[in-house]
């Protein structure tokens, strides 16, 4: 069987530092990522959590690799399905006056439900992130999540 792997690349008129901050700082993620915050001290081995305004944890995991403004690798699991853990890699690259951002979500367990959910989510999140960085405003496209 072919392994599931989701890769999404976008190009943003921004800098690697601003893009990194938009992914790792709760005050920014709340503005474009369905109102959720990414919370961690972003050190290798530290835990990270994706939490709602009501402090519900939607996704959690560990920081596997962290090179600010370049590369962030996380494990990713639903708190109710901790064994269904997968991996997310953010790669930030400067391309002339742009940022190329590639998100790869892979290492899904056999029979994982997560691949389906995140293939719905990543194009929304990353489209909204680009809008946020370029216009100051994320997209309101998360109804039903």
């Amino acid at each position: 069987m072919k392994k599931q792997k989701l890769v999404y690349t976008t190009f943003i008129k921004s800098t690697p530092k601003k893009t990194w901050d938009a992914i790792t700082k709760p005050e920014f993620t709340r503005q474009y990522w369905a109102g959720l915050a990414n919370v961690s001290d972003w050190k290798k081995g530290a835990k990270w959590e994706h939490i709602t305004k009501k402090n519900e944890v939607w996704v959690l995991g560990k920081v596997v690799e962290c090179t600010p403004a370049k590369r962030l690798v996380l494990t990713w699991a639903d708190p109710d399905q901790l064994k269904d853990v997968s991996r997310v890699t953010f790669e930030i690259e400067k391309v002339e006056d742009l940022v190329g951002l590639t998100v790869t979500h892979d290492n899904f367990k056999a029979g994982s439900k997560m691949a389906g959910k995140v293939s719905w989510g990543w194009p929304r999140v990353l489209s909204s992130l680009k809008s946020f960085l370029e216009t100051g405003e994320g997209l309101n496209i998360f109804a039903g999540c």
Partner: protein
Amino acid sequence: MQKSTFMYVTYIRTTPEKLWAALTQPEFTRQYFFNTTQESEWKPGASWKMKAPDGSTTDGGEVIEIDPPNRLVLKWRHELKPELHAEGYSHMTYLIEKAGTAVKLTVTHEMDKAGSKLIEGVGHGWPTILASLKSLLETGQPLEETRQWKGGCKGE
């Protein structure tokens, strides 16, 4: 049968009508699609051509399905590079749907052939083109990298 497929979804703060115009009209495509234009009468069975700034045809085919501002299906063959031309026709679909305060654009480009070099090539091009299209519609400015013709399909 084995296929090569590239699919990309983006969400843009705009209307389906504005997105449709940006996908089909030369004054918009020149800005985000490497200074190319598309020529067609935009009706079923009409011929379709993509033109480089020097007037040469880079890609050609015909309109298979057209339902403005919702759906466009093109038969699409590359014309400049012999090895890509030899692969014959691919199919490219734009699907436009409303999503909250934005519009969802799904681009599907496929060929009935495993390991297509054309699909590999457009797989490098589409994310850049669609990122620039989104910037153009949301900010009024495309991404600088997509304003100039660069000799076509990268990635070979």
